[in-house]
């Protein structure tokens, strides 16, 4: 579903990504972790072309992301993305947030979009909040709305960039529960997260990044059983002690 081949990216002369390669198959859940500044966000943003890259190739459902001929908006509409800071549109109500792209991008009717939005809002347990503005919701609620907003587009894969790290501890689980459910339903997911409990529960593979490279790309059992690199071991021992 997602194939990343030898991606390299520079900001000016600073190399953020160095020959990263991996793949996420249909229905697979891959967790990406690594220290701050290691390039996790950059890599995941390359997958839907939010960040351009200079070398290598990324294919999503067979379509090349870096090809200038690719209709990127159309491709992006099929890939859901959830951000660390939710990024709901503050001037719109929850239901407007859910319907905007369905109507403007997919061309659905307002009624169909609203029906879809409400169904997904119900699924994340927030049906009662439809007419509120994001500013009046808690962080955990906002992130669940953001997930629902992405799901409204019927994505073929979901990208998560540290979806719980801006949340107060008591709200982390309500978001993780939604993600776990999604994973169990067979959604293809690439998740940057340090929630190792989540990784243990639903991940198929874990990728460890450091200094812009993929240092480790292992099945979940291998990763938690015997990480091969010293850096990954150190990193794991650090975050598992928290």
């Amino acid at each position, binding site marked *: 579903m997602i194939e990343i081949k030898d991606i390299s990216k520079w900001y000016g002369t600073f190399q953020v990504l160095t020959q990263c390669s991996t793949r996420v198959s249909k229905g697979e859940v891959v967790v990406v972790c690594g220290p701050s500044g290691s390039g996790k966000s950059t890599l995941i943003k390359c997958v839907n072309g939010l960040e351009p890259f200079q070398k290598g190739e990324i294919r999503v459902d067979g379509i090349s992301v870096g090809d200038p001929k690719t209709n990127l908006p159309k491709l992006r509409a099929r890939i859901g*993305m959830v951000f660390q800071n939710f990024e709901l549109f503050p*001037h719109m109500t929850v239901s407007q947030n859910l319907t905007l792209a369905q109507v403007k991008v997919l061309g659905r009717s307002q009624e169909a979009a609203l029906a879809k939005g409400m169904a997904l809002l119900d699924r994340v347990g927030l049906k009662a909040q439809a007419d509120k*503005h994001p500013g009046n919701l808690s962080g955990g609620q906002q992130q669940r709305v953001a997930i629902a907003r992405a799901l409204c*587009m019927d994505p073929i894969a979901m990208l998560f960039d540290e979806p719980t790290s801006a949340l107060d501890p008591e709200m982390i689980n309500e978001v993780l529960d939604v993600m776990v459910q999604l994973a169990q339903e067979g959604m293809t997911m690439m998740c940057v997260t340090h929630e190792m409990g989540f990784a243990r529960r639903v991940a198929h593979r874990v990728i460890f990044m450091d200094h812009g490279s993929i240092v480790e790309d292992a099945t979940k059992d291998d990763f938690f059983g015997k990480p091969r690199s010293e850096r990954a071991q150190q990193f794991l021992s650090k975050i598992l002690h928290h």
Partner: protein
Amino acid sequence: MHYHWNWRIYWQQSPDGSGTYLHTLFVGLGWTLALALLAWAIALLLGIVVGVIRTTPLRWLERIGNAYVELFRNIPLLVQMFLWYFVMPELVPTALGDWIKQMPPPWGAFVPAVLCLGTFTSARVAEQVRAGINSLSRGQGMAGTALGLTLPQTYRYVLLPMALRIIVPPLGSEFLNIIKNSAVALTINVVELTASARAMQEYSFQVFEAFTAATVIYLLVNLVVVLLMRLIERKIAVPGLIGPSGGPAPAGH
């Protein structure tokens, strides 16, 4: 000082035969408002376009926008007024230039004055629009883009609605500025409020009454605009947000 105060002067007939001096002043006010509102429409439209292109990822567009703002911001308004009135008709194709020069008064001066004030203010609006867009988190644009919105759609539905809300207060002061700046149009013979007050002074020699009236009218217009801006700010406030575009904080949980 042997000044003869005469507060009843406003109800006396002006020798130009158009009516009372008060009438003269209100006609002037009418031109001031027409000038300010039309120029404001141009300023908003151009200002939003130029402000937006200065924030797009396209470098050459950004440069054009920057050059535009520098040009209109750094030449004194009075000079721009003369350029629009005296020089512009000579620079455009002859047929158009002749047509402009033959426009009957007051349009021959009014149109250049509107264009001048509009473009001058558009540079300042563009600066505000750019600042407003840049004050939004980068993630907002990314969220729109990630949903499949095109760049124009992202601006239209995601970035501009918030950016414009944020800059309503500074836009309000720009509107007050455009009203004040419209007085410069008297130098190219647009008989707006200040010019009307001067005409009243020249006919009646009641300089204090003439300019007291003009001052009071400007202040009243300002007051109305300030009240209107407050109303607009309240109307567009985003529930649950604090700060310039937010409404009152939600009460409890």
